[in-house]
Structure formats: C-alpha cells, structure tokens
C-alpha cells in the first residue's frame, strides 16, 4: 500500500499485529478518491431523485423494498384466502386481472400467476434489495469510513435500473393475459414455448425475463461498488479485520451477487430469445402441448435449471448473509460484549459463500438429473450446515450469560436466530435425495424456505430498521409498538409456517390452487387456520408501518449514539449524517469494531475512533 514519496507508513509496534497502516498528508483532512466529484447537490432532482449520495440511494432501495413487500404480502393474502375458501369471491379482484377473476372468484391460472409474482417480488425486490442494497448502500461506506462509494453514478444507475425492473414486472399485470404463471423459477420448457403453455406465458414471461435482466444489471453495478468500497475506500487504520461484521457480510454477499447475477442475466437473455427470436435453447424436440407440436427443437430443459440454480442457490445466501451481519451487529452492542470469535464468524460466512456454489443441484434432485449427481450435490449440502451451525453456536454462546438489553432491535435479532434454526433443521431432511424425492413437491419445502430464508431475512430487516432508524432519520422509533410488533410477528410466523411442515409430511402437494383429491380434504381446516394466522400476522405489520411513518416525523429526537455502540456510523457529527458523512474530516480508526467491557478502559465501551489506549486479552497472548 505504501507509495513512493507521497506518504509515510507506520507499523504499529505491537506483538501479533501484522498490519501496516499507511497514510498521507495531514491527518484531519486529506483528499480521498471520491472527493473530486463530491459537492452537495442543491436541486430537488439531484438531491432526492437521481441522487449520487449513497445514503439517499440506500433510502430509495429501502422505499422500493417497502412498496414491494406490501404488494407481495397483499398477493399472499389473496392466495391464502383462495386456499382456505376456494370459491369465495374476493371483492374487487377483477380489477387486478381481466380474465383471472370472473365474478371476483380466482381462476386456477390466476392463482399461479399470483404465486409467481409473490415469489419473484419477494425474492428479488425485497429479500435482495432491503438487507443488501438498502442497508448496505447506506451503512457500508460510513462503516468503512468513506465519504461515498467510488462510483456514485453507477450507484445511482443501480437503483434506477432495479426500479425499472420492478415497474416492468408489475406492468405484466396489465398486459394481455396477465403475468406469467411459471413460478419464480420459470422452469423450461413451459416458460419458453409461449402462450401454448397457459395465460401469461407469452408476454408475461418476456416481461418477467426483461425485469430480471434489468435487476441483474442493477445488482451487478451495486456489487461492483460494494466490493471496491470495501477494498479501497477504508479510512486510515481500518484494516480488514477491523471491519464490522455487517460490512463483512455485505462484502461477501456482493461477491456472491457478482458471480450469481452474471450467470442469471445471460440465462434470461437466452429465454427472451427463445420467445422473441424463435431460437431453441430450452425447448426439446417433439414437444406437444395441448395437442400442438411445438416448432422448436433440440433444446435442453435441464440447461435452464442448471443456469437458474447456479444463480438460485447463491441467491438464497445473498438474502440471508446480510442478515447474519445485521443480527451480529445488532446483538453485540445489546449484549455489551463481542462475539466469541470475530474471525471464526467471518471465516464461516466465507465458507458458506464458497459452498453455496457447490450445492445448487439439491434443488434438482427430482428433475431427472443423474442420481449420481444427486449424491454428489447432497454431500456439500450437508457440509454447508457446518459453517451455518458454527454461526448459530457463536451467537448462542455469546448470548449465554450476557445481560442482553431487550429492545425491539435485539428482539428481532433473537427472532432471526430462532427462525433460522427452526427453518434450518428441516434442511437436513431435504438435503438427502431419498427424503427429498418424497418431500420436494410438498408444503414441507414451502415451510422450510419461508422460515429459513424469507422470514428470517425479514427479521433481519426489522432488526436493522429498529437499530439504524435513529441514525437514518435522527429520531427514535417507538419501543412499545416495536415490541408489540415483534411478539405478534414472531408468534404469527410460527403459526403460519410450522403447520406447513406437518401437512407437507402428510402429503399436501404445493403449487396446487385447490385440494380436490379425497386425502387432501382433511388439510383444508388447517389451511383455513393458516389463512387466519397469515391475515392477522399481516395486519400486525401495519403497526410497523405506522411506527415507521409516525417516528419519521414525530418520533423523539435521537441522540448521536443511542445504543452506546462503537462502530463508525455512530461517530458521524449528526443524525442523519451530513452529505460527506463525517463533516469534512475522515475518521481515524484505532480499535477493533466491538470493544465492550474492556478492563482498564474509561467506560463500558471504546469507540473505534477513540485514541484511548486499551489492553485486550489478545495483547497479552
């Protein structure tokens, strides 16, 4: 790092310290990379719309995820109502679809269209954007001590391209025969043959693929910024191991995103070509649909699944790994002690990321893939539980005996751990091909991934929101409402998704819009109960919406460091931070990120920027 002639390198003379800190110029104001183009915008558009400020972009992503999650949840309500009371007219449903709801009763096809849109919106535009793009954009540059991302224009484009993707996806409700019904995985060949395979399979699929292509481009630009910021924009003294766990999580996620979205994008382009250009990448020969021989020939249906799941499995971790970072980052200040091991936590997340590329075949055990491949994919799938278990054990071991400060953020962090364990345990079953063959097409899988990935990630988003809201908006959220929101959501989530596991084991097939066969009639009362739970849990989210909006404008003003935390976002001169984050002076970092309860220090905690001398156990070792 040290450069000839233009600076000095200081090596801290402490045993075991292997890093060199290099810096240049005067300590309190030196030119950073992004400095040149960095003047606060004055126009409304430059400030709030096409903003280059990572904080505004982070809020924009949060807003997009907020709208998307409400819409996705609304779709799930419609589906749940239909599953409980199949012929119940839902007033106004015809407004959402021209043909899908004659007399306001949902058709089977429309159910599948809603299911597809629910999955796509939630996975891409909520679980990827909120914990990764929203919080990451806002806090990663601040936590590494930078003024902004190095490529602010790419960052701005990243959001607006993602936003365009969302608009294209939602627009498919209002075109022709509605959105695609192929599920969020869009399995070929049905996704590639056009309207022959059902309503929405023509224009709907093309719009879906265009939307996801745009989304991929947006996330690639975002990942580029995240990686470069973490590597190059760290302030003086901020070595890699001094990065907070949240930064590590976003960094690892962005590397996964970079490789995963770069594979999904060409796959979507090939799918579009199969539709609009008449190519045959995914459609096999002699395919007959509705007594019509399809004109395409020779394509490989498994090819789509391979390309999709090579992206799809890392995508699951793209949704959950930021949650690991956020939960650790939220728990530590509330426990008033660091995790048992900072490094093992990081290494486990890295191991998880690497392994996530070797396990994707476990989504394809029943696809007709060679059974030997199934065994080959089963082993790493079981192995990946090891780093995941280590992460959970580090949390539990650190929590044990700590005097946890109970607040909304720490409750949601605990809830995350609970969901992750409950949902993760069923993963052991599904990792084995022999069991998966029986369970794959049932509600057991639906319960599994909703808990381990979807709801757990949502709990991570909630934990992050309650924790960082004071920094993002300068006001505190209402704690009473937050705790009420937590308990209703926590109990409600279990009430929804635990029964999924039981009816799945009993043979309730997923993706069905109604349960006509005799043996499934018995499940209908359970489905009604689940629907009631889903509606109530959904309604409980209105408490959060109210809390968010009310606190934004009328909340109690927040102190600069309300949680007595140590990392750099709490060193900014104001809440929300000024345009250049640190008021013209980049911070200098002296300590590891989580210094709590250090013997001999002047207080209970030592900020990363505090020049106070402290001694830790590792100093003595």
């Amino acid at each position: 790092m040290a450069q000839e002639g233009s600076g000095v390198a200081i090596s801290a003379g402490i045993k075991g310290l292997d890093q060199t800190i290099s810096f240049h110029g005067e300590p309190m104001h030196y030119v950073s990379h992004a400095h040149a183009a960095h003047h606060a915008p004055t126009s409304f558009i430059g400030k709030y719309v096409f903003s280059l400020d990572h904080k505004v972009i982070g809020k924009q992503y949060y807003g997009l995820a907020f709208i998307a999650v409400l819409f996705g949840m609304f779709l799930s309500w419609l589906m749940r109502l239909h599953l409980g009371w199949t012929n119940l007219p839902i007033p106004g449903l015809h407004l959402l679809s021209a043909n899908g709801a004659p007399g306001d009763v949902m058709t089977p096809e429309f159910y599948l269209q809603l299911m597809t849109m629910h999955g796509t919106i939630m996975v891409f535009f909520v679980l990827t954007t909120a914990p990764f793009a929203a919080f990451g954009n806002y806090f990663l540059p601040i936590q590494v001590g930078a003024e902004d991302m190095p490529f602010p224009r790419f960052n701005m484009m990243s959001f607006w391209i993602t936003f365009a993707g969302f608009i294209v996806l939602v627009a498919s409700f209002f075109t022709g025969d509605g959105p695609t019904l192929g599920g969020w995985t869009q399995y070929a060949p049905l996704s590639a043959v056009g309207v022959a395979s059902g309503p929405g399979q023509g224009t709907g699929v093309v719009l879906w693929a265009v939307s996801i292509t745009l989304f991929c481009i947006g996330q690639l630009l975002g990942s580029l910024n995240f990686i470069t910021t973490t590597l190059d924009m760290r302030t003086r003294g901020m070595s890699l191991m001094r990065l907070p766990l949240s930064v590590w999580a976003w960094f690892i996620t962005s590397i996964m995103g970079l490789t995963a979205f770069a594979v999904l994008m060409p796959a979507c382009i090939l799918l579009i070509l199969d539709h609009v250009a008449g190519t045959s990448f995914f459609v096999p020969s002699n395919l007959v649909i509705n007594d019509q021989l399809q004109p395409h020939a020779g394509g490989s249906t498994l090819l789509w699944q391979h390309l999709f799941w090579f992206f799809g499995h890392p995508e699951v971790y793209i949704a959950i790994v930021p949650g690991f970072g956020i939960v650790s980052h939220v728990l530590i200040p509330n426990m008033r002690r660091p995790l048992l091991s900072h490094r093992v936590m990081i290494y486990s997340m890295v191991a998880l990321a690497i392994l996530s590329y070797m396990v994707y075949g476990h989504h394809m055990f029943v696809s007709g893939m060679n059974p030997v491949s199934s065994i080959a994919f089963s082993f790493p799938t079981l192995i990946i539980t090891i780093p995941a278990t280590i992460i959970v054990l580090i949390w539990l071991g650190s929590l044990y005996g700590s005097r946890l400060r109970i607040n909304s953020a720490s409750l949601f962090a605990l809830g995350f751990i609970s969901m992750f364990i409950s949902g993760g345990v069923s993963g052991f079953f599904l990792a084995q091909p022999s069991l998966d063959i029986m369970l794959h097409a049932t509600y057991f899988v639906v319960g599994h991934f909703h808990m381990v990935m979807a709801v757990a990630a949502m709990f991570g988003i909630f934990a992050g929101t309650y924790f960082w809201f004071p920094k993002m908006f300068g006001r505190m959220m209402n704690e009473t409402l937050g705790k009420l929101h937590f308990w209703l959501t926590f109990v409600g989530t279990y009430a929804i998704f635990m029964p999924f596991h039981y009816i799945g084991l009993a043979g309730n097939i997923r993706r069905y819009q109604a349960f006509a066969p005799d043996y499934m009639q018995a499940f209908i009362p359970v489905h009604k109960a689940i629907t009631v739970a889903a509606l109530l849990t959904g309604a409980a989210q209105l408490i959060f919406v109210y809390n968010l909006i009310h606190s934004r404008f009328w909340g109690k003003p927040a102190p600069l460091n309300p949680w007595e935390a140590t990392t750099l976002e709490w060193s900014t001169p104001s809440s929300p931070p000024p345009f250049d984050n640190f008021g013209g002076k980049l911070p200098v970092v002296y300590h590891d990120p989580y210094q709590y309860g250090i013997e001999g220090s002047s207080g209970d905690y030592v900020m990363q920027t505090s020049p106070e001398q402290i001694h830790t156990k590792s100093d003595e070792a």
Partner: protein
Amino acid sequence: MATTVQPPAIKKIEKLQTGSGNGGWRPLVPAGGDSRLVQEFAPPPASTGIWVGLAAITMTFAALTSALVVRKGGAVDWQHFTLPSILYLNTVVLLASSVTLELGRRRIAAYMGGLRSSVQHPARWLYVTFSLGLLFVAGQYIAWRQLSAQGLYLATNPSSSFFYVFTAGHALHVLGGLGGLGRAIRKLKRLDLRRSTFDATARYWHFMGALWVYLLVLLWMKL
C-alpha cells in the same frame, strides 16, 4: 488481535512526485500542476473496480460457454458451419488496436509527465485505437451479413444461435470499451485524466481482445 496503535505521526508532504513514467503507482497529473493534486493511499478504485467488472463479464461468458457445451452435448440437430473468414481479419484488427493503445500510453505518459511541450498530439494513438475498434465492430457486422446471406439466421440452428449470441454479446462489450476510450480522450483534452482511469480503460480494452481470441477458438472448435 491487538487493538491499539499509537496516534499516527504527522509528516508534511513537501512535494508531490511528478513525472509519471510507464510504471509505478504515481498519480497521473501534469508536471505543471494544472490539475488537482491527487494523493492516492490505496489502490485506486478504478483499478480494483475494473477487475471486479471483468470478473462479472468472465462469469457471463463462462455461463454462455457452459450453455453451449450442454446444448451441443444433447443435440441431434446441431449443424456445423464454417466461420466467415473475415472474422480472422477482425481478430488482427482488434489485436492491433491493443498495440496502438500501448503506444498511446507511452505518449500520454510522456505528455502528462512533464514533457508536454515536446509531445504533439498526445491523443493521436488513442484515435487510431478508437478507429480500429470501430473497424472491428463493422467487420463483425459484415460477418453477420455474410452468414445471413447464406441463410443462417439467429433461429436457423442452435449453432448459428450461439454464434450470434456470443458475437453480439462481445460486440456490445466492445462498444462499451469504445465509450470508455472516448471518455479517456475527452479527459485527456481537459487534462484531468487520472492514471488509474486510463489504466482501467486499457485493461478493459486488452481484456476484450483476449476474450475475443477465446471466443474465436471456442466457436471454431464447436460450431
């Protein structure tokens, strides 16, 4: 891990190193000091960023390659065809543009490094590179026209589908590189071209050449 360091000592920088040769990490600023002083203390983001971007492009073409291998492996309808010979000429053009870019780098380094009065037209080789890039894209277009004249369109056969997908994907990336070159030329005229920006542009451009050679071999072997 130890956590405490002494407060850093302060050393005033007397003079910024000037005279940027063709190596080292010194900032690319004119000796006259017309441009803002840039003090780089980490690898410049453009340098890391371009590698990250190239990694993403590599993944995209790796995914398409695996798609080609899988699609061809199970196909009974694969028709082989001979690549248009103009592709080989295009290859020479693209590789030559990499050479001219390196020539341009030397000239710019001399210009920005203080010999401004003695270097005329620092951007000359960049214009040549830019033109060769355009020539390459035009050559690819001619190759597509030749294939369609033979009746080989995008949807004719999986082999021709892959040919168009690969070459069009590559050509789009080359156009992006041309945009980057244009930006570098503009910045050079305004005297605020940073070394890291130019290096990143050059790296991208060379990568396009290497990627094309890979694609040519792949298409030659598989189509």
